[in-house]
């Protein structure tokens, strides 16, 4: 069976996978990182979003073998080692941007990339359009948009330091 070597949340792993194993299956089933979720089978819902080499990617639409040699961050790796929440996680909590929590890991990972890649600011329209690949059935998106807008200055102030 083929092998894939990748770094996940700072830890290197070498894992045997089948050619058809999806990255999300590798994460959930082989590495026990069940924070990344599967919500659909047509690559629409975004519950599976992780970062590969810093960019948000739907892990249901990546084969595990494609991730060979990459560095992956999942929701479990977002907070600091001492448990301090990432500003995006803080703002989601502050603004009640989650209810059942199932879409949340993918939503947060998408949001972090969205904010990181727009250092000069995000309009409300840009935030809403940036979330096109993430479905939420509980919140109506209103508070998610608020949380992301609130996280922007916190994330870019940190980067500026």
């Amino acid at each position, binding site marked *: 069976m083929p092998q894939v070597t990748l770094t996940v949340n700072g830890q290197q792993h070498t894992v045997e996978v089948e050619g058809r194993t999806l990255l999300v299956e590798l994460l959930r089933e082989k590495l026990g990182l069940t924070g990344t979720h599967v919500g659909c089978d047509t690559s629409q819902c975004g519950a599976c979003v992780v970062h590969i080499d810093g960019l948000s990617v739907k892990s249901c639409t990546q084969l595990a073998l494609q991730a060979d040699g990459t560095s992956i961050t999942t929701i479990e790796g977002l907070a600091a080692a001492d448990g301090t929440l990432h500003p995006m996680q803080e703002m989601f909590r502050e603004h009640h941007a989650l209810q059942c929590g*199932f879409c949340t890991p993918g939503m947060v990972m998408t949001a972090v990339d969205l904010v990181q890649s727009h250092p000069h600011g995000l309009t409300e329209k840009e935030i809403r359009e940036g979330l096109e690949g993430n479905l939420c059935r509980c919140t109506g998106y209103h508070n998610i948009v608020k949380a992301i807008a609130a996280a922007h200055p916190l994330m870019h102030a940190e980067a500026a330091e």
Partner: protein
Amino acid sequence: MGFEGIGASVRRKEDVRFLSGRGNYTDDINRPGQLHAYIKRADRPHARINGIDTAAAAKAPGVVRVFIGTDIAAENIGGIPCGWQIHNKDGSPMAEPMHPVLAVGKVRHVGDPVAVVIADSRQAAKNAAELIEIDYTDLPAVANLTDAVAPGAPEVHDGVAGNLCYDWVIGDKAVVDGVFANAHRVVKLELTNNRLIPNAMEPRSAIGDYDTSSGDYTLYTTSQNPHVIRLLMGAFVLHIPENKLRVVAPDVGGGFGSKIYHYAEEAIVTWAAGKVRRPVKWTAERSESFMSDAHGRDHVSTAEMAIDADGVFLGLRITTLANMGAYLSTFAPAVPTYLYATLLAGVYKTPVIYCNVKAVFTNTVPVDAYRGAGRPEATYLLERLVDAIAYDTGMDKVELRRRNFIPADAFPYQTPVALQYDSGDYQTTLKVALQNAGWEGFEGRRAEAKKRGKLRGIGISTYLEACGIAPSAVVGSLGARAGLYEVANIRVHPTGSVTVFTGTHSHGQGHETTLAQLVVDQLGVPLDQVEVVHGDTAKIPFGMGTYGSRSLAVGGSAMVKAMDKIIAKGKKIAAHLLEASVQDIEFKDNTFTVAGTDRSKTLTDVSLAAYVPHNYPIEELEPGLDETAFYDPKNFTFPGGCHIAEVEIDPETGVVEMVNFTAVDDVGRVVNPMIVEGQVQGGVAQGIGQALFESAIYDPDGQLLSGSFMDYTMPRANDIPPLSVATENTMCTHNPLGSKGCGEVGAIGSPPAVINAVVDALKEYGVRHLDMPATAGKIWSIIQSAQPRMAAE
């Protein structure tokens, strides 16, 4: 720390684990030695099963067992039961055909489960399932309501003539017909309430486990009500006694009603685990969810209102066809009857009402309650009809509503359709909504939009609903087969912290926080010292779960009663410790005080004394500080309010853009304003989804065309406008909290507000009515076919 009791927008305790990827959803759970189940489903809507050959599948790599319907039938396993029996207008009971766990003899809808493969991996099970050969004889099928009731329509169930499950009425037809005959005018409207798919983001999942040494079964399942599943599956399907069956609903990723029901897959994995003597795990793929989760809505109605010359409503007459799908799901018969027709007074003082509902079987997925469950159907009908009355008579839409409101001094108000409303102030929610939505300035906005080539419209809906489900004796007399009380066990620990064991279940509603706030309020224990436990039948005595906006109104009331018992016992203990008379003991802010003195004991002092009863009235009082209360509500609760939607339509494309949405709701006492807003926002998004985007579409032969997120339009962030959400509350008069519930109001009031806005935007095209969803294609076609007419004028 700040105020954390009732009324505080406390941030949620459950958030940190969800935000850190440490939620414990059913598919996250893995049991040692587990096998995986894959369900082979019917790929056709209606067929006789002549034979099933599982030989090749059984020998496929990794496969342990393959089971089909005849294997299950041979073991005396019952069919999936229905929890509510409706009677026909002649008094006879509804048709209740058998709903087998795996199909026997026939398949009746695309997605009907036929076989299960148990293997050492999901892939192995799925591959093997493709090797199962089924010899079918296709039968004619019927998917939509009007086809299903037409003479000569194919019969979904042998012996159920005309596909009629029941023919039910409420009200006196002769009286109503008399009012209509003498009325100044009758306004008629035909409408469809579109079929929806709930699509919670977490697909359904179930793990069955069997302990070979104790003979105990455990089912982990994505359920809103684990005790109900234990009852239905244990007593009626698998015949496992309650004490040998534990059901655990861990973190559940949304439900909206679709996770209430006992589903075949739960019985399959539980039974199979006992057969193969290893845990058996199943998780739906999303396109599998589309053809196996209960769908919602799907009514076709004719509505008529008799009015006088001033637009006062004299009588309402309705006929409705309601789709049950191929089999009766757990609540299904109640949804278009007691959760729909009894709401047809709405906020209006219409004196007489008659409604006839025919529930119909079709070759489609079973239909059952989905957020609002009957009340969105009633509200949509009423609020579209009221706007049609305004359209036909030229009367003002708002004034027409005001004129017919039940006045604020008329409560308790007995409607002509069984329900008695306890409190409400419809004039106030209307007034505030009109203000917040800028109703007065709308025509200016319409003119400005016209200059940009856009059609702008505004729509209003004034509504109420009935929830806080439900008074047991009342629903029992109406055909419910279960009680609908709730249970709370409040355990004060020796060192003063509190655990709440509740029979409700949180799948997004934030109960770990909001129910804890009730304890902060009544016992004065800090929030971080209160833990809420739910979802495990081994930990919680009994309960009926979460749906029908009942957790606070019914579950919270049970907690209040249990805490009353804690305080009463605590006073006796404190009296002993303080050497005072119990009548002189007061309790406030976590402290028992001798009235008029500064002599006091904290709840912690009292609880420690109770568990270490050395200085204790042991002759009169058992040790411990742990009380349980059951609460059976005296009535439904009646939240409601006013929703206003504003839309802009691009006539070139037909695309409807939501520009504003305003909700002002009366939800009774608010425990956490932030949570209430979140519930209304989420409900409104689902209502906008129903109004503009969503439709579960079958072709006439029963093939599910909208079978995945590719074809079923879920609302996205850029489809939902900023939402203005506010409350103007009147207290519920019959529960100790005064809470009415807020979980469903968003989805109930919003669809007609949106459609009323779309019709308003299209008024220059002479549009009186259109049905949901108001997709771009539908609107574009309406505009196109109206234009030659307009050019001719």
